[in-house]
């Protein structure tokens, strides 16, 4: 069985400051992990993925995430927030067999 827990339902940052969105996972297998972003009335866009290669994964729009097996974490970070980063972010775990489990989501607000 596998699951993800997004530790914050809402994160608020000021423009230009760092972003940290936290995700912990549970998996019986060696997992694949993904971060998706969803802007209002849009579908989910893949930001980055971890599939047992490098533990530090770089994604689009300046985001990156680090896989830490000892902490069962896959937190998403960005050094400097932009207004356009305001959106809902989902952490997703997959153990194969097309079985993807979504976290509850974290709403990121960026203040000017």
């Amino acid at each position, binding site marked *: 069985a596998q699951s993800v827990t997004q530790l914050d339902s809402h994160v608020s940052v000021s423009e230009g400051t760092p972003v940290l969105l936290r995700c912990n996972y549970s998996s019986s297998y060696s997992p694949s992990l993904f971060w*998706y972003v969803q802007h209002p009335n849009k579908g*989910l866009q*893949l930001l980055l993925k971890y*599939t047992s290669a490098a533990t530090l994964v770089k994604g689009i729009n300046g985001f990156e995430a680090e896989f830490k097996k000892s902490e069962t974490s896959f937190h998403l970070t960005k050094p400097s927030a932009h207004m356009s980063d305001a959106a809902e972010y989902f952490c997703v775990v997959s153990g194969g067999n*097309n079985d*993807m489990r979504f976290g509850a989501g974290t709403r990121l607000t960026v203040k000017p």
Partner: protein
Amino acid sequence: DAMVIQNPRYQVTQFGKPVTLSCSQTLNHNVMYWYQQKSSQAPKLLFHYYDKDFNNEADTPDNFQSRRPNTSFCFLDIRSPGLGDAAMYLCATSRAGAGYSNQPQHFGDGTRLSIL
């Protein structure tokens, strides 16, 4: 660009009147998914097609059906929509099979369904 396209973007139907939502893809992916997403919630998987094989989630109501006439198209049929079925419906695709484990899903922009 290769993509997943959902039509229409917004759909209004009457309580109990059947409605069909459509999804097409140019990615040539062999797996297609339908999700229901309610406000401020994560997407909830309804069912998926792995090639021609239909896989229903255990808690998907019988009111929801799906058809996949070919690789590129997939339809979501709601036979008798209730007020609780108002939601965003997302279609996604992925490639699966030998050499394609844990591939990401690619999403369309969704169809927002309203029930009058």
